[in-house]
Each structure stands twice: as C-alpha cells, then as structure tokens.
C-alpha cells in the first residue's frame, strides 16, 4: 500500500470580478493529477509559484476538499476519514507565519502537543528531544517573536514532528532562509527519511529537490508534466545547448518570434539588474545564434554566450511548455 496516493485529484476555486456587476469565474488550480508515494520515500513536488503545489498539499492534509478525484494517506480517504488522517500526518510550511509570536518556543510546542493528543506524561520528554533535534535547545523559553527566520522554521519542523507522525508534508520549508539556515533545515529533512518517515516535499528550488528527493514530480499550471528520479529528469534534457543573450528592453513579440524558431525547446527571460537575459534552449547540433539575433533587431544587445544545459534549464523547459 502506498503511503500517499492521488488519483485524478482536482481542485477549482470560484472568484468574483467587478463590484456592481459581479461575475463568477472558475480557476482550475489542480487539474486531475495522479501520483503515489511509497512508505519511507522522500517525494518532491517541484513547480513554480502558482503551479498548484500548495493546493495539492492542502487537499492531502485535509484542509481543502477536492472538487474531483480521490486522495488517500496510509490508505485513509482524506475527505471521509479526515480525523484519522490528521492523527497520522505532520504539516510544516515555510515562512514566518504559523507561530504564536507572543509565546515562547516551548509554549508553542506545548500547545500543539495538547492539540495533537501527545499524552501529558510524554510531552516534556518529546519536546526536549525535538528541541535538541532542531537545535533550539537553550532558546526555548524566549518568545518566538525574537527568533530569526531560520529558528522559526526549525520550530515549525519540531511542531510537525510532535506526535511522531508517519507521513510528513513539507510545503516549501526553506523559503526565504539564508544559505546556512536552509542547509540546516535540509539536514533535518534528510534525517527524517533515515528515521523511516514518508515525506512529501514541495519546493521550487531544483537543487533542493535533487539533493533530497528519491523521486520528483514536476507540476506546472495544475498538471504533472514529468515524474521520475532526479537522474531520469536530468537525462531528459542532458542534450542540446543553451544560448544566453543579454538585451536591454526586449519586446514580448520578439520573444514569441524566437520561441517559434525551429529547434527551440524553451525560452525564458530573466531580469538581471538593468538588463534582461534571453535564455534559449535549443535541440542538439542546432546553431540558432544568428537566427535569434535576427529577431532581436531594434533591441540593444549585449553579451552573447553558449553553454551546456543545467538541471535548472531542464526544469525551466518542463514548466515553460
């Protein structure tokens, strides 16, 4: 039995536009996705902002009811058996929210220990263990409002582990952390699977998914566009090359014309200080530099370079399709 299973999982939202003439609009955040995570696996859901990662996780942790399809955690249906699911899962999200700032780190953990039904006689020992694990020992009686972002994030991880859940959902747990803080959180995540936990991690950092995950599903615009081990995904785009052209003020039409060239796999525009960089992935053995420059007439062109594709290019190619 898979630890997490999603079949045809779908979620739409209704939004309204206008003030006097209100019009309802339906937005499809997740469009019928399917995947399975095996027990003890660290599975990554990788995608850009707005791809549907958080919506997917919120359906799996019972905070949102799917508008279609089914999802099961440890064989339990996330809609019909929500309370049983909640007893067995932990949820950690990134950022500074989700902490009672006026309480100490210790009181935060004590409160959630009660909410998650950790027996009274075990609470003290469990909280001490987790404070040690996440490196907050010695600072636990300070108010959380004085904690750094990294400390708050580690407090989140400790909270998610209070009731020793079998499955953990980590929603962008390193977002906004400095490199040292992010590395500490990643080390803690890596230790979770070593302890036998099943982890579903969402992130938009390719290198993070590569370093931590056994398998990755790339999600874009609510659909899964690729799934496999990090190695599988790298193989998929290890061919071809990337042309980078520095430009100052490129028109959207020019980008579309480049995209339409034969042999172009993906096009992205990155902002770098004053300039923009047009990143064009091309198929193997295709020389498109002149053709690309031909479409940039009128724009101020700077440095041009050609390089081998990286894993990040693979990700860009997948989500840009």
């Amino acid at each position: 039995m898979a630890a997490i299973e999603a079949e045809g999982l779908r979620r739409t939202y209704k939004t309204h536009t206008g003030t006097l003439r209100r019009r309802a609009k339906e937005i499809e955040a997740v469009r019928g996705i399917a995947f399975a995570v095996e027990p003890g696996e660290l599975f990554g859901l990788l995608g850009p902002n707005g791809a549907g990662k958080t919506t997917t996780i919120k359906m799996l942790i019972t905070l949102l009811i799917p508008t279609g399809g089914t999802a099961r955690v440890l064989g339990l249906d996330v809609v019909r058996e929500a309370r049983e699911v909640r007893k067995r899962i932990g949820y950690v999200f990134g950022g500074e929210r989700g902490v009672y700032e006026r309480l100490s780190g210790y009181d935060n953990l004590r409160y959630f220990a009660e909410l998650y039904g950790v027996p009274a006689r075990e609470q003290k020992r469990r909280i001490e263990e987790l404070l040690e694990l996440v490196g907050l020992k010695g600072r636990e009686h300070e108010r959380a409002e004085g904690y750094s972002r990294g400390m708050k994030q580690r407090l989140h991880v400790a909270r998610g582990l209070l009731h020793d859940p079998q499955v953990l959902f980590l929603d962008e747990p390193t977002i906004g952390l400095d490199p040292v803080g992010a590395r500490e959180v990643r080390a803690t995540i890596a230790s979770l699977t070593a302890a036998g936990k099943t982890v579903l991690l969402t992130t938009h950092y390719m290198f993070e998914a590569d370093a931590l995950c056994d398998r990755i599903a790339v999600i874009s615009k609510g659909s899964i566009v690729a799934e496999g081990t990090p190695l599988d995904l790298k193989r998929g785009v290890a061919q071809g090359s990337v042309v980078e052209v520095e430009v100052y003020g490129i028109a959207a039409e020019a980008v579309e014309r480049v995209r339409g060239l034969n042999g172009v796999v993906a096009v992205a525009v990155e902002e770098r200080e004053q300039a923009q960089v047009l990143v064009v992935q091309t198929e193997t053995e295709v020389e498109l530099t002149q053709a690309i420059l031909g479409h940039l007439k009128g724009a101020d062109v700077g440095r041009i370079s050609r390089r081998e594709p990286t894993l990040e290019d693979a990700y860009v190619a997948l989500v840009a399709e």
Partner: protein
Amino acid sequence: MSSVRLVAVSWLLQFKMIMRSPFDGFGNVIYPLFFATVAFLVFRAGDSPRTLIYASFGAAVMGMWSSVSTSAGSAMQRERWWGTLELLVAAPRHFSLILLPSTLGLATVGIYNLAATLLWGRFLFGVHLTIAHPLLFALAIVGTVVSFGGLGFLFAVSFVRFRAAWVLGNFFEYPVWLICGFLVPIAFLPGWVHPISWALAPTWGMNAIRESALGGSPLPDLGACLGLGLGYVTLGVLVTDRVLRAARLRGTLSLT
C-alpha cells in the same frame, strides 16, 4: 480527561497571549474606563444614588461584553493572519475544543473590566457599592463570564467560515448594551425587542449581577444565563463540523 486538560492548557496559553500584547492590553485597560466615565457622567445628572449604582454595574458588564464581542471576531482573523488557523483545523482534536478556550480566555479578561469599572466609579465618582451577597455575586460574575465565552464561541465558529465576518463582532457590540438592559431597563424598550433580550445570555447575567449585589435573588437569572450559555456552546459544537466543511470546500481557512 484529556479534553479537560486541552481546554485548561489552551485557556492558559490564550490568556497569556492576550496579557502579553501591549496594544490589546492598553485597549483592555483604557476602554472600560471610558464606558464607565460616560455612564457615570450621564447618570449622575439624574441625581439618584440607586440609578447610579444601577448604571455602575451596567457599565462594568458593558466592558466585559465589549472584550468578548469585538475580540472573538478579531481573534479568529488574527489566527488566520498568523497562519495558525489552518494548523488548528489540521489538528486531530475536535475544533470546538480548540476554539472554546480561546473565547473563554477573552471572556476572562472581562473580569478585569468589571473590577476596573467598579473601582473607577468608587474612587473617581464616589459610587459606594455594598454587595449584599458576595458569594452569589462572585458566582454571578463567573456564570456571566462563562456564558459570554459561550456566545463568543458561537460567533467565532461563524467567523471561521466567513473571512470578513469579524466585522460583525463590532456590529454586535453596541446593540447588546441596549437590548440586554446594561444601562436602561429592558422594560423601557418596545415589546417586540423583549424576546430578543430574553434569548441573549447577557440580559440574564446582568440581572444576576445586579440582584446579587443589591440583595435580590439572583439564582433564577443565573440559571437562565448558564442555560443559554450552554445552549450556545451546544449549538456551536453541532455546527462546527458543518462550518469547517464549508470552509474547506470554499478554501476560506487561509488568507489567500
């Protein structure tokens, strides 16, 4: 047993949070004194010592009610803003057991409001109060706090479902002062208002406090107050699952 412990620990931590906020604290300290000052100045003009005593208890309960009605709404909005509301809902315990201590914590602050108002009246306006039945008076206060907590809980349940419903907390603040006879006896109000007054626990809590202080018999009022409080809690518990399901369907638990 674990449910009792959950309510007790949650109440303690909620109370700790309320007391630690300098801005909330300032509001809680200053607001009731404004109510009291207005009430004392208005009723002093009437030149009747009994009326002034009537008003001083009314002003005290006004402060209690305000701290529950406005804070119950803003407390839920704050949980949403802090990103903790989703964590509370994602916990395996029944949500009503999590919510009730929160509103009870707010109602407890109301005890301070009551004490501060009475002391303000005593030292600034020279209103001498003698409490005829101190034990019953204490019981009436506790009963009123509990029933206010129950009503706040019922409000808070609906505030979970609707993101903007916290505004209603402010809306309910002033009408209850009037409808429940805090400053003016409900006998002065039109007949059609009376059933609304009777359905609201603050009416009976107010009566119980006045009766116990002035030497009447507060037990029937206290019974009605607690009975209604229990009714609000029962109704709140019964609708919690439905409200949460609606919030999960519409995705209103988070800010975005």
